[in-house]
């Protein structure tokens, strides 16, 4: 049987991590769970360990992108065949894990992205966010010639080739979304979206507050641009 790892990046999620792990367990009792504790100052690591998850703790906060990559490195080292990645704040509904995994296991695709905009009802993001998302969605859909509706989604599943590819320096660690999808596409990986349900984050804490949306826009445009300038590097 294929071995599957569920990666849950978490930063100060002691209040919710137990519930997330429990829900994941209910849906997928046979899969290993790795919580990547990104330098939390609360009991995230302890709580997760009590719930029976493996916990890798960063010595200090390094950001979401670095946390998930730590998970990929673990998956690669331990020889997992597939990875599912789900946020630790309860935004992503674990009920959709089988939906995400099915297409990669059946080898229909290499990389599955859970989209909140395909059918299943989810929360509505704010207008400003919707405008930004629409812009990148259009841009990305043109560049990859694939229909991508939710490029910022961190709810993903993928196979071993992608795991290996993501542990190299090509992985954009600060905001791994639109440019990561483009990099994947240009490396020849197939991307597929499936509908998932997402809830608004309960704390309302988001990566996108203050001036960050502007930095995000700038960074994303720049990295999409330089990704296009780079030579296509197809992994061996």
């Amino acid at each position: 049987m294929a071995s599957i790892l569920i990666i849950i990046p978490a930063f100060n999620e002691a209040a919710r991590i137990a519930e997330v792990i429990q829900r994941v367990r209910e849906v997928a009792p046979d899969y290993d769970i790795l919580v990547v504790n990104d330098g939390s100052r609360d009991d995230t690591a302890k709580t997760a360990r009590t719930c029976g998850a493996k916990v890798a703790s960063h010595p200090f906060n390094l950001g979401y992108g670095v946390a998930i990559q730590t998970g990929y490195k673990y998956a690669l080292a331990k020889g997992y065949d597939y990875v599912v990645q789900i946020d630790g704040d309860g935004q992503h509904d674990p009920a959709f894990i089988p939906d995400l995994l099915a297409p990669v296991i059946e080898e229909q695709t290499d990389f599955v992205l859970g989209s909140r905009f395909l059918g299943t009802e989810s929360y509505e993001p704010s207008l400003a966010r919707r405008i930004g998302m629409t812009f990148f969605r259009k841009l990305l859909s043109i560049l990859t010639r694939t229909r991508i509706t939710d490029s910022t989604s961190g709810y993903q599943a993928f196979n071993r080739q992608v795991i290996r590819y993501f542990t190299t320096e090509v992985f954009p660690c600060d905001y791994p979304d639109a440019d990561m999808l483009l990099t994947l596409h240009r490396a020849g990986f197939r991307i597929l979206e499936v509908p998932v349900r997402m809830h608004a984050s309960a704390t309302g804490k988001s990566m996108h507050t203050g001036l960050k949306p502007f930095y995000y826009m700038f960074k994303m445009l720049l990295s999409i641009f330089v990704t296009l300038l780079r030579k296509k590097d197809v992994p061996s």
Partner: protein
Amino acid sequence: MEDFLYTMPLQQQIFALIVSVMVFIIVVDMVRRRKLREEYSVLWLVTSVVMFVLVFRYEWLVALTAAIGAGLPTTTLFLFSIIFLMLLSVQFCIKISKLTDQVKNLSQENALMKLEIENLALKGRDS
């Protein structure tokens, strides 16, 4: 007027010489005491040598000023010192980017190793 363009006042010469020699000595000494890595000393040493040379070959500076179309030799000096500082900060940015990447990789490795040790300890307790 023309005279002013082609010679350097004595005070200026002395001042420039003192500064360039001091920069040179301090940088070499810092490298000797391993306070400064060789790779960072290169730009500083080159600058002090160039300053030193220009004191005795002032006409070179004047020629350079004419070549880049600046008005006064002092403009050329300021211009090049700004370029020098910019190069230095670009060098730092490159280095910081690399260091950030290295710190990231080290922290990840550290996290995974801690996890591995925990697992080994658990296994040891069970058996």
